[in-house]
């Protein structure tokens, strides 16, 4: 056994998270027009803002430093969320957006973008 052991784990570089392109089609959400409709009700939020809010809830739940890079592509699990964290995040999102997320929908959320898309759909249904 090597005598000189590192006192901490090998500093493995995290993989860079690519930024999500706005308006890029996502396989799990409906396609959106590139421009927001002229009649915009206050409670129907735009995509980047939703992603930002989701990121904020996630960072709070996982106690991540404010400057942590969390984008649409960020996976909850990769950020350190276990199943209890994920459920708490969904609960936090329900409060933040005043929506109710069914458990089977909640289970399909893997990334910040998944959550933002689901929220937008639920909010859109409320606005409609």
């Amino acid at each position, binding site marked *: 056994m090597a005598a000189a052991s590192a006192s901490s*784990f090998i500093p*493995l570089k*995290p993989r860079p998270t690519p930024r999500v392109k706005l308006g890029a089609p996502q396989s799990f959400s409906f396609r959106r027009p590139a421009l927001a409709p002229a009649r915009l009700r206050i409670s129907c939020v735009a995509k980047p803002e939703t992603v930002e809010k989701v990121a904020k809830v996630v960072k709070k739940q996982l106690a991540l430093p404010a400057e942590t890079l969390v984008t649409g592509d960020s996976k909850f699990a*990769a950020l350190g969320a276990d199943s209890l964290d994920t459920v*708490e995040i969904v609960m936090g999102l329900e409060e933040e957006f005043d929506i109710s997320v069914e458990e089977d929908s909640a289970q399909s959320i893997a990334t910040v973008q998944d959550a933002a898309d689901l929220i937008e759909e639920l909010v859109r249904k409320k606005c409609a």
Partner: protein
Amino acid sequence: MLSFLRRSYLNFSFMNPHYCCLSRNFSAALPPLLPVQLPSRMETHLWYVVPDEVKSAPLLSKYMELLPQYERDHVLGFRGDQLQKSALLARTLVRTTIARYQVDDHLDPRSLRFKRNIHGKPEVEWETKDGFCPPPLQFNISHTSSLVACGVTMNSLIGIDVEEKRRRTKNNILAFAKRYFTAHEVEHLNAIPDSELQQQEFIKLWTLKEAYVKALGKGFSSSPFNTFTIRASSGIAVETLDSPQNLTNNWQFALLELMGSHYVAICLERQETGGAGKALPIKLTARKTIPFVEDELVSGTNAVVTIGGSVTQF
């Protein structure tokens, strides 16, 4: 061989100038895994690793070498050292544990393949070869940053979940329970006046519910937490809301306190009963391990205390 290893680690910021000599020492010194007999039909094996006790960078590199590229990528996808380490130890633990059972004479942890069932539950993908009949080995893993655990049985579906005793929810417990648990469970938690005890009971309930869903292996959406109640008055049992009068007898549970710091919930498919349908206790063997370094039998010691369910440790 060594230069290949060095090249493959250029992706890590592992530019430790001492790596060369350390790894040479290490690669010569790695002992084989201690082989273990497969659990009998009635036994459950619990293996666990404490990440804080695994400090050697060369050893962790060796563990990384056991993984196929896609698993290495998965480990590296986690943010930060601690998360990557526990992800690495989870894959290492499951591969080395299954390899110990020497199911196939030259089983190397590296050569194990895994697949997922139609619901996403991980399973071993045994090689199909003439004369080789794969054993009905079942396993399940769970990890937190401070503990990685793997449960193994023969035949019995198994689900395990581990959690720190002191885990705190960000949300108010009762608000959370009202949203996600059943009315009976909310009532049970509400009746606990001490907030510390209430928090602990919540964590115990959470781990038991997780273990049940993981044992079922059909994914969380098929068994939302508010569709079944865990009753833990005398013994632990599960009751599904669609048949409230019949406690579901197919499943038995164990709740352990590990090292005084963690709860471990185990849910098993019931294999046999004693007379008059009475459940036989779970026969548990627990081992703490640092793969390739040391294994310690801890069942029956105060490292593993049964706090729920009927368990015989040996």
